[in-house]
């Protein structure tokens, strides 16, 4: 499954400076593992020591927060778009 992933500024250094990358993955968990394989160091930034997505990292699948879907187990399909966004302050 080819999925488009938007990489936030603080992680772009790890992704050869790219703001957007394409990844083959069948779920969010799989996507995190594949990102790590392609761009070593990425997963430890996004996940804590137990492998769960850090509490200050928001991941959106086609604009919906994965915490409203099936979190790390959320399945992916061809053409999906995933955004990784740090938590930002309120207004």
């Amino acid at each position, binding site marked *: 499954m080819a999925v488009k992933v938007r990489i*936030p500024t*603080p992680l772009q250094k790890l992704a050869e400076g790219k*703001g957007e990358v394409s990844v083959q993955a069948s779920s969010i968990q799989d996507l995190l593992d594949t990102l790590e394989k392609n761009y070593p160091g990425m997963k430890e930034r996004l996940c804590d020591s137990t492998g769960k997505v850090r509490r200050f990292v928001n991941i*959106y699948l086609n604009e919906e927060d994965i915490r409203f879907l099936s979190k790390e187990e959320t399945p992916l399909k061809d053409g999906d778009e995933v955004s990784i966004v740090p938590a930002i302050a309120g*207004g």
Partner: protein
Amino acid sequence: MSFLKGLRCRECAREYPKEAIYVCEYCFGSLEAAYDYDGIKQVLTREKIEKGPKSLWRYRELLPIDGEPTAGFYSGFTPLVKADRLAREWGVRELYIKDDSVCHPTWSFKDRVVAVALSRARELGFDTVACASTGNLANSVSANAAWAGFKRYIFIPANLERAKIIGSLVYAPNLVAVSGNYDEVNRLCSEIASKYAWGFVNINLRAYYAEGSKTLGFEIAEQLGWRAPRHVVAPAASGSLITKIWKAFQEFEKLGILKEKLNTSIHCAQPEGCSPIADAIVSKSDTIRPVKPETIAKSLAIGNPADGYYAKDVVMQSGGFAAKATDDEIREGIKLLACTEGIFTETAGGVTVACAKKLIEQGRIPRDESLVLAITGNGLKTQEAIQNAVGEAVRIEPNLSSFEEAVMKRPGVKV
């Protein structure tokens, strides 16, 4: 003289230069301003503050700018109202309203954070500022950026109250209404922020912006004669304000400015239709579960609160608690504050009043201990919320008999 040393990650404590960055590259934690407190202690005294300007800039040494302020010269230093009538209504001994419904120039506490954010934006060389907002921040960035001569892009959820839309448009910003809730506006803005080199006050300037909220806490302590109250009830959207009121009291204590040992409990007020932080506090949960907001308190409608964990920690650590208000209770809270203290607050203020009442009734706030309510915005901005709950004017013809017939002969009227 600058006492701003740099930025520090609130999660892993890694240090960063004082630039327009907002998130730790290693753990995604948010960055916070770090100060040279030893240096501040040598120059900052109660007397020095008292001689300062009658604005939030009287606490300049504890704000994150390098040079002199360049925005918000009249913001802050709002009244601390001794609320004896409301106190009598509730049977409490010592009650105050910190009244930011009259903050200059756009009638909410957001004028504090924007004063700091725009002063820092200028120092960092930005010519364009932007924000994602539930309305009050939009008004404040629009106004202050117009005055300070910045180009300005303002992003809001499309369903905001009319007065909050007009209250931005009048300053001629680029006002962008996004089809979606605030959390969706926020996500979009963080993508825009990584593409355009703008000063987003609540994204890449967040570490500076957020510090402006401390001045609400500094003022409360100064206005109480350099003492922190036993209790504060504050509303929570992202949760930032709660953390900064607490930080303000702690900084004053650390610098020897408080006359008594700090013993304050901070309580969290949220609307029932959007209460991720209050729910975590009440259920003693370790996690904050994002929600889809549904409430008339649109300025508090943040379902995924960025500072939620920190706000929860402050409330727990300070011995505070949390309460939630329904839409009807919010309206009652607005009317109660108006009828007792003559202050017309917006829906967020209604939440604070309603939640304070509950916390008192539950015994979480004992009736003989001092209490400050943080009233953060003005009721003229959210009139839709109460327009069907305040009755109508009595209509009469322009003659005396019509007046007496319609008004003076109503049941219960005594001359």
